[in-house]
């Protein structure tokens, strides 16, 4: 038997859910197919940092738009998703780094952006009282913050369902074909049909693109996280540092969450990502260097999550250049969580109206596609 819908979403991570939600709210009959279970990969493993700080120019406009949505996220999904605007702070440990940061922020502000500001040593200590004495200052994005990934998943899932989205877990898409304007989607024995298709398949989105005839080369990221036992409140903002792979924050539960992009081992066929202890040790060393007080904290758990990475480290969100009714939505390269609320709207706009008022020109898939002339601006950023 074949099920039909107005739109089919492949992938039940946050981006798939957000796209499904927006399409359903615009009156479509939406079916979401998820191979494992909702949030099984990147979205469930995420550090859930909500960051505009240091975004590449191509992503900045949509990131700023998403930021406004995060500040009112309950209006969108009926729950605050654990979002707290505690700020994101990037720390300089040497004078040279501080000067480099200052120059960057000055440039940024000259272009008209107000989301980043320089902080000196005194304000740094107010923001992060336990930071190592050698840290000199940094750049602070006050309206940035962090959310709770599992609450966010639950809220988007609930909203999508009540907007009428049909969710099929355990439905892995195995082939795609087109009959006229209709997409024929097979998931094992099951068959589905819809005129509109969203490829939000995370680390496997390159395979889905290939099934649809689009060759979009992507890499894989398996970023790792460490979570410690709970301690008394000591830090509000999320802290990163120039020249270190580190992201460090305290959650609402009191645990310390450490990430920053050190890579684990992965196996796309087995759909698994595992920790690499030696790489993880570098995250721990960076954390201890910046916050010496955490040295004795016990690690409760570590993990790694899978997602797609692009050559230029910029997300892909745009219509297929080769075939109608297909939106590509992947390649978030470790920083897609923050973009979730905005890109759902972008997806609905593009599939239904063919265009969107958001500035997502820099996220077009064809910039990376085989034979496509590389946008010189994007090439420079890579």
């Amino acid at each position, binding site marked *: 038997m074949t099920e039909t819908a107005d739109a089919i979403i492949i992938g039940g991570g946050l981006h798939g859910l957000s796209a499904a939600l927006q399409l359903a709210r615009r009156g479509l009959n939406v079916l979401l197919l998820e191979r494992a*279970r909702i949030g099984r990969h990147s979205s469930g493993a995420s550090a859930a940092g909500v960051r505009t700080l240091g975004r590449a120019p191509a992503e900045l406009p949509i990131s700023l738009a998403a930021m406004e949505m995060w500040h009112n996220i309950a209006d969108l999904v009926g729950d605050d998703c654990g979002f707290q605007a505690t700020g994101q702070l990037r720390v300089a440990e040497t004078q040279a780094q501080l000067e480099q940061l200052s120059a960057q922020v000055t440039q940024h502000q000259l272009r008209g952006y107000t989301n980043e500001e320089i902080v000196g040593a005194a304000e740094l200590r107010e923001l992060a009282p336990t930071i190592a004495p050698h840290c000199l200052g940094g750049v602070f994005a006050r309206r940035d913050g962090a959310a709770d990934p599992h609450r966010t998943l639950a809220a988007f899932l609930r909203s999508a369902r009540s907007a009428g989205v049909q969710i099929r877990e355990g439905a892995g898409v195995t082939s795609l074909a087109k009959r006229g304007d209709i997409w024929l989607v097979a998931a094992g024995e099951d068959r589905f049909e819809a005129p509109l298709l969203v490829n939000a398949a995370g680390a496997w989105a390159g395979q889905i693109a290939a099934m649809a005839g689009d060759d979009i080369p992507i890499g894989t990221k398996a970023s790792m996280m*460490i979570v410690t036992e709970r301690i008394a409140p000591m830090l509000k903002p999320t802290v990163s540092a120039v020249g270190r792979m580190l992201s460090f924050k305290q959650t609402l539960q009191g645990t310390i969450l450490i990430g920053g992009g050190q890579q684990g081992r992965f196996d796309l066929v087995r759909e698994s990502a595992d*920790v690499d*202890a030696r790489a993880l*040790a570098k995250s721990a060393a960076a954390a201890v260097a910046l916050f010496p007080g955490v*040295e*004795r904290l*016990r690690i*409760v*758990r570590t993990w790694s999550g899978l997602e797609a990475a692009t050559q230029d480290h910029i997300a892909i969100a745009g219509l297929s250049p080769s075939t109608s009714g297909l939106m590509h939505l992947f390649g978030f390269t470790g920083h897609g969580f923050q973009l979730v609320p905005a890109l759902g709207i972008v997806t609905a706009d593009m599939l239904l109206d063919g265009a969107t008022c958001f500035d997502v020109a820099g996220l077009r898939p064809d910039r990376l596609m085989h034979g496509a002339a590389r946008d010189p601006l994007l090439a420079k950023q890579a």
Partner: protein
Amino acid sequence: MIDVAIVGAGPAGMTAALELQKLGLSTTVIDDQPAPGGRIFANIEQRPAHGAEDRSGAALVRRFRQMGGDYRPASEVWQIEPGPRLFLSSSGQAQMIEPRFILMATGAQERPMPFPGWQLPGVMTVGAAQILLKTARQIPDKPVWLAGSGPLLLLYMHQLIAAGGMVEGILDTSPSGRIITAARALPGAITYGWRDLLRGLAWQWQSRSIKVVRGITSLQARGGDKLSHVTYSTDDGQIGEIATELLFIHDGVVPGLHGTIAAGCDHRWNEAEQCFEPILDTFGRTSVETIFAAGDGATIGGARAATLSGRLAAIGIARAAGTMSSEQAETAAKPVRRGLAKAARFRHFVDALYPPVKMALPDETITCRCEEVTARDIRAALKNEAHLGPDGIKIATRAGMGPCQGRQCGASLTRLVREAHGGAPDAIGFLRIRPPLKPLTLGELATLDSGI
């Protein structure tokens, strides 16, 4: 390069090390305890040996000490990666070892026995009480009630009374009448000879002073900030209450799976013993070529079986390493396998006497103690979520996210999924285990960083 890293210096690990050395392979034995002996022979060098079993244990520890191989006490293995690579830490320093083979001889853990109030101070597992008795000679100064089933419950009772402690009564959770079924297997058990156990049993039968309530189907520990009362019901409809400040609970032992799960070995459900076990070939090799398993960490068989399976795994490793031909290995393995079959007969006795019981798991039970998640929370999460397995529950409820890594709630999660959606435990599976396997601080992990 070291040929074999052995995790665990209990009867299985020590025997394997001795055997491997004889077979010409180098070993490193890593154990988190301060001295060799494992669970059953903990602290044996410092305490008087009671009975034949203890004497043989003391002799094994002596031979192990004299063997002179690399032995690392007070060292915790916290991660195993393909390679194989093994990560350990001791005295605040983390380290990586890359042996050719790893033998997991990590022993059993007590089967968690969740019921409302099991988290109250005053409720303790028999295993924990036994460690206090064996290593610190700590004897409770108040009378104790015991609850549960399994030979170790009786063994502990025996040990406690011998040490001068007071046992007021037993709340026996094994179904009434089981003793008769078990009696048929008794001859096999006697030839195997777990004398302590039989003594404990005989003692229980003869004793008049210890109250026994049989056929317990549900338990509830009550009290404000510590235990004051225990209420129970039985399979013939009785409801009762006892006043006690100490309740020691035990529901048998199961393989401590965290090491083999973390190492990526495949496991399967053992229906008779209601637990998962690593899948092994006839030489103790797991589904991961370079990793072997022996002792109670592989399948529950008791100390003597642990010794034999340690020897068998050593032969298997020598065969895999090429220092023994397949024929030589088969010949050497034959008598060991015969011994293991004999030990299994004893196991049947224990199985018959103490089939793992399914006590009620009422909604108010705090199933995950680390994150304080009740059975009600888990049942609610499972409702209408046919694709939610143990890992999904973990995300939905935080059950299993705490420091014990699901050692206390993992089996309950599998059970509750089965209760909600049916399905075989093999299909449901166990929680995924995320490193570290053992407590590790950020500072310790950081010491592993070479700075490059």
